[in-house]
C-alpha cells in the first residue's frame, strides 16, 4: 500500500485565486476543520495518484471553525454524520453537502489508489478514477441511500460503495469504447441518457425530444443477429422512416409540437451519442465547482445529539443479535468456521482460502453463500421469536438490513481473536508507543511473524504453500496498528 505522497509547491507558483492553499507537510489532513473544508488537488507521479495539496474553501472553513467551537469534543464521525443528516434525504442546509464532499475526498483518493493498484494491468488512469469517485461522492443521496450509522462509519461505508460504483463505471466506460454509435444508443438507460445531456448543459425542459427520439430508435431498431450487437450498423432508409413516423405519432404525449423529419431525428440521436461519449471521458480533476458556494451562506442549525441512534434500544438489539449469531456460528462445521476466519477475518481472498483447504473456488463460494443464508435465516427466526412474532412476515428490505448487520458481525467476530492476539503480543514487547512509532516497520514485521505462527496453530493449517499469506497478514497488522502512525 503506498503512502499518500505529498508535494510541496514551490513558493510563489501556487496560482490559486479564491482558495487558500494549505502547505501539505502532512499528507492526511490533521484537524477537523481541514477534514471538512479542504479539497484535494491531485496529480500523478510515476503513475501513482498523489495529492499535491489540499485547498481550503474559505466559507467552508469559517463555517467549520464556528461549528467546532460549538462543541470542541465532537469527533470526526460525529461531524460526518451531522453533515450527512443535514444533506440527505433533504438538503436542509446547502453547505452540508460540501462539508461532506470535503470529508469524502479521502475515501475517493483511497478508492482510486486501491483500484489502480489491484488492477494495475488494466492501465486505468488514476486521476480519472479519482474524478469518477468524486463525482459519485458528490451525490450523497445516492451514495448513502442504504446507510445505517449503527453498522459502519461514514468513511468506511463510503469507501465500500465507492469501490463498487467505480468498478462498474470503469467497466461501463471501457465497454462503451467498443460500441458503435448505434450500438451505444441501444445500450443506454433513460437515466444515463438524461444525465449525459444534463452534463452537457441541457435543461430538463430541453431533453424531451432527445428522449423520445432515443426511445423510438431503440423500440424499432434492433440487431438482426445474435452476434455483432456491439458493432451495430445504422438503420436502413425504411427503418429511419419508421422511427421518425413513430416519433411524430408519440410526440403529442410529451407535448412536443414540432414534427421531425428523418434528418432531424438523426441529428437528435447524434447529439445524444456525442453527449454520452463526452461524459465517458471525464474532465480533469478539479476542486469541484466551489464557485457555486455563496460566501455569505446562512448559519447552520443547532447541533442535535440524540438522533444519531434513531432506532429504539440498539444496544439491546445488538446484544440479542450477538448471542443468536454466536450460537449459529458456533454450530457451523469447524472447517467452515476456519474458512470464515481467514476470509472475513483476515481478508484472504476466496481463491486463497479455497486453495488452502484444497477446494474448488466455486465450491467454496457456494458453501460460504449457503452458510451465510442459513445463519441469516436463523437470525430472522430467532429475532422473530424474541419479538413475539410467530409469523415471519419479514420483507426483503428488512431482511437485507439484517443481512448487512450479520455480515458486519461476522467480520468483527472473525477478526476479534487475531486483534486480541496482536494486542497481547504488542504488550509483551514492552515497548512504548513512541518507541514503536520510531521503529514502526520493524515492529510491524515482527508482529506479522508472530501472527503467522498464531494463525497456523489456531487453525491447524500451514501457510507456507501460500505466497500471498504474508501480504494479507501484513495488511491486517498494518490496519490494526494504524494508531502508531
Amino acid at each position, binding site marked *: 500500500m503506498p503512502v499518500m505522497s505529498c508535494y510541496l509547491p514551490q513558493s510563489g507558483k501556487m496560482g490559486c485565486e479564491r482558495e487558500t492553499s494549505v502547505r501539505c507537510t502532512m499528507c492526511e489532513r490533521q484537524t477537523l476543520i481541514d477534514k471538512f473544508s479542504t479539497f484535494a488537488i491531485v496529480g500523478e507521479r510515476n503513475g501513482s495518484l498523489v495529492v499535491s495539496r489540499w485547498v481550503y474553501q474559505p466559507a467552508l472553513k469559517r463555517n467549520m471553525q464556528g461549528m467546532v467551537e460549538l462543541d470542541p469534543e465532537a469527533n470526526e464521525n460525529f461531524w460526518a454524520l451531522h453533515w450527512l443528516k443535514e444533506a440527505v434525504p433533504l438538503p436542509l442546509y446547502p453547505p452540508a453537502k460540501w462539508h461532506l464532499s470535503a470529508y469524502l475526498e479521502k475515501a475517493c483518493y483511497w478508492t482510486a489508489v486501491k483500484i489502480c493498484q489491484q488492477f494495475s494491468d488494466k492501465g486505468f488512469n488514476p486521476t480519472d478514477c479519482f474524478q469518477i469517485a468524486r463525482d459519485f461522492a458528490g451525490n450523497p443521496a445516492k451514495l448513502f441511500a442504504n446507510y445505517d450509522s449503527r453498522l459502519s462509519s461514514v468513511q468506511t461505508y463510503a469507501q465500500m460503495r465507492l469501490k463498487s460504483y467505480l*468498478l462498474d463505471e470503469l467497466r461501463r466506460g471501457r465497454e462503451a469504447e467498443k460500441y458503435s454509435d448505434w450500438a451505444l444508443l441501444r*445500450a443506454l438507460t433513460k437515466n444515463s441518457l438524461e444525465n449525459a445531456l444534463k452534463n452537457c448543459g441541457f435543461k430538463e425542459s430541453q431533453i424531451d425530444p432527445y428522449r423520445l427520439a432515443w426511445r423510438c430508435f431503440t*423500440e424499432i431498431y434492433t440487431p438482426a443477429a445474435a452476434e455483432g*450487437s456491439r458493432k451495430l450498423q445504422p438503420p436502413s432508409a425504411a427503418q429511419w422512416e419508421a422511427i421518425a413516423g413513430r416519433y411524430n405519432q408519440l410526440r403529442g404525449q410529451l407535448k412536443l409540437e414540432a414534427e421531425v423529419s428523418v434528418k432531424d431525428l438523426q441529428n437528435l440521436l447524434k447529439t445524444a451519442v456525442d453527449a454520452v461519449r463526452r461524459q465517458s471521458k471525464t474532465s480533469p480533476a478539479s476542486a469541484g465547482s466551489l464557485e457555486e458556494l455563496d460566501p455569505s451562506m446562512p448559519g447552520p442549525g443547532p447541533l442535535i445529539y440524540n438522533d444519531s441512534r434513531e432506532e429504539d434500544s440498539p444496544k439491546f438489539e445488538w446484544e440479542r443479535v450477538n448471542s443468536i449469531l454466536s450460537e449459529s456460528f458456533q454450530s457451523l462445521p469447524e472447517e467452515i468456521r476456519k474458512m470464515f476466519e481467514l476470509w472475513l477475518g483476515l481478508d484472504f481472498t476466496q481463491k486463497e482460502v479455497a486453495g488452502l483447504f484444497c477446494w474448488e473456488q466455486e465450491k467454496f463460494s457456494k458453501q460460504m453463500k449457503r452458510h451465510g443464508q442459513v445463519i441469516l435465516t436463523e437470525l430472522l427466526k430467532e429475532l422473530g421469536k424474541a419479538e413475539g412474532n410467530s409469523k415471519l412476515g419479514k420483507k426483503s428490505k428488512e431482511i*437485507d438490513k439484517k443481512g448487512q448487520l450479520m455480515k458486519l458481525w461476522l467480520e468483527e467476530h472473525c477478526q476479534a481473536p487475531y486483534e486480541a492476539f496482536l494486542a497481547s503480543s504488542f504488550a509483551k514487547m514492552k515497548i512504548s508507543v513512541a518507541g514503536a512509532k520510531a521503529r514502526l516497520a520493524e515492529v510491524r514485521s515482527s508482529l506479522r511473524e508472530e501472527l503467522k505462527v498464531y494463525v497456523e496453530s489456531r487453525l491447524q493449517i500451514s501457510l507456507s504453500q501460500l505466497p500471498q499469506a504474508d501480504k494479507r497478514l501484513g495488511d491486517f497488522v498494518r490496519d490494526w496498528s494504524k494508531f502508531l502512525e
Partner: protein
Amino acid sequence: MFTVPELMVEFPEQLWLEFDRRERSAAWPNDGKYSYDAARWNAFLNRLCLTLVIPWLEEESGLAAKVWPSEADLPGIWEVVNGTAVALDKKRFVLIPSEALDIAEFCVPQEWVDIPSWAGDYYLAVQVNPDGGWLRVWGYATHEMLKSKGIYDELERCYCLRREDAIENLNVMWVAVEVGADERVPVKPLPVLSAMSAENLLAQLSRCSPYSPRLDVGFEQWGALLDSASWRQQLYKRRMLAVAGDVAKDVAPAPASTVVNLSQWFENVVEAGWQTIEELFGAPEVNLALRFRSPGSESGSPEAIANQIRHIYTTSDEGLLKIAAQRLGEIGKGYPQAVEALIYLLGKTTDEETRWAAAESLWKIDPGNPASGVRRVKDLGMQIAGHAVALMVAALPKAGGKLAILVRVYPLGGKTSLPPGLRLAVLDEQGDIFLEAQARDADECIQLKLGGTRGEWFSVKVGLEEVSVSETFVI
C-alpha cells in the same frame, strides 16, 4: 477489461454467468416466430436469460422451475412484452433482461406488475452483454418495492426503480423465500372485456407494426386483453397472419390509415378502435352532452309527458318540436309513448336540429333502439397536445337514402370541458374545410352536423394549435 471471474470476486452477492457462441446462437429464434425485428431481438435476450438463469434458480431453491404460463406461450408474450416469468413452487420470479451498459435503474414493464394474473413475487434485474458473452443478475425487487418505490414512467408504461432502491444481494432473496416473506401487494382488478370490444382491440392491435402495440390502447384495455390466455394467443396468431399476408402482398409494413365505412356500421361491421359509448365511458349514460348539466334523468309527471307528446304530433313549429324532443329525453324514460313520439318525429322532421335532438333523446331513454341510427366513439388518446379527447360519430338514415351525420368531440380523462381553442373540422374529398367549430372556455363538447349520400368521402380533423389527428370516412 475486467474478466468475469474478476467481477465475480468484486460483486460476490450478484450472479455472473458466462455463455459461449454456441449457446448464444441457440437462443436466436427460428424464422417465422415473430412478426417484427424488435420482437425477435426481445425473444433472443429473453431466451438467453431464461436458459442461463433457470439452472441457478433450481440449484438455489432445490425446486423444479416451471416457465409461466408455459413454454408454448412464450412467443405470444415476447412478441409484445419484455420479460419472462418462472414459477418455483408457489413463488413467481420475473426475469427482466436489459442490454444497457449501466445499472442505474431497473425498469419493469407494467404488464408484469399490474395484470393480476401476471404479477410476480420477485423481479430479477438481468444485464445481458451478448457480444461479451456474459450476463449478470445485478439485483432484484419485490412486487411491493416496485409499487411503493418504483417511479411510473407513463411514456414507457413501466415501473423504474433506482439502483439504490433495488436489493443487490441475491442471498437476501433466497432467505426471504425461505422464511416465507409476503412481498406482493394487491393490484386493481382489470375490467372484463366484452367479446365485441376484445374483437375490436384485436383487429386494431393485430395490424403489422415494427414495434410492440402495447402502448396503442389504454393500459386497462391492453392489460385486460393480455390477462386472457385465449385473446393473447389470438393476438399473436393474428399478428403473425397479418405479417404473412403483408409479405405475400409485398406491401410496406407501415399500416395505412383505414377508411371508416359508415354504411357498414348499420350492418354492425365496425372498424377497430370505434367503441360503443358504454364501452368507452363504462356506463350506458347516453346523453353525454348533457351529463354535466342534469344530475340525472328525472321522470316527469304523466301530464307533462303527455303534453310534450301532444306537441310532437300536432305542431309544425321546428323550435317547439326541438324543445319537446329534448324535454322527452329528460323526463320520458320508461314511457313507450314517448319513444314512439320520438321515432315519429325522426321520420317526419326535415330540420337537422330537431332530428338530432330527437335522436339524442332516444339514445337516452331507449338506448339501442334501431331508429336512433348508429353511433360510435373513438378514444383519440393523448395525441392532441397531451389532451385526452374522444371523437363521436353518429349517423341517421334520412329520406332519399341519404345519411345525416353528427361528429362531436368530448373531453376524456376526468375533464369536464375541452381545452379552449380545440378545433373540429370536416374536410371534403379534396381536403378543403367545409365545416369548422372551435371550443371556447369551458365548452363541454363541440360538434358539427352534415349530410351525405352513399359513396361520398369526408374526413374529420381534431386539432389544437399545430397538432392534429384525422379520420377519413366513406358513407
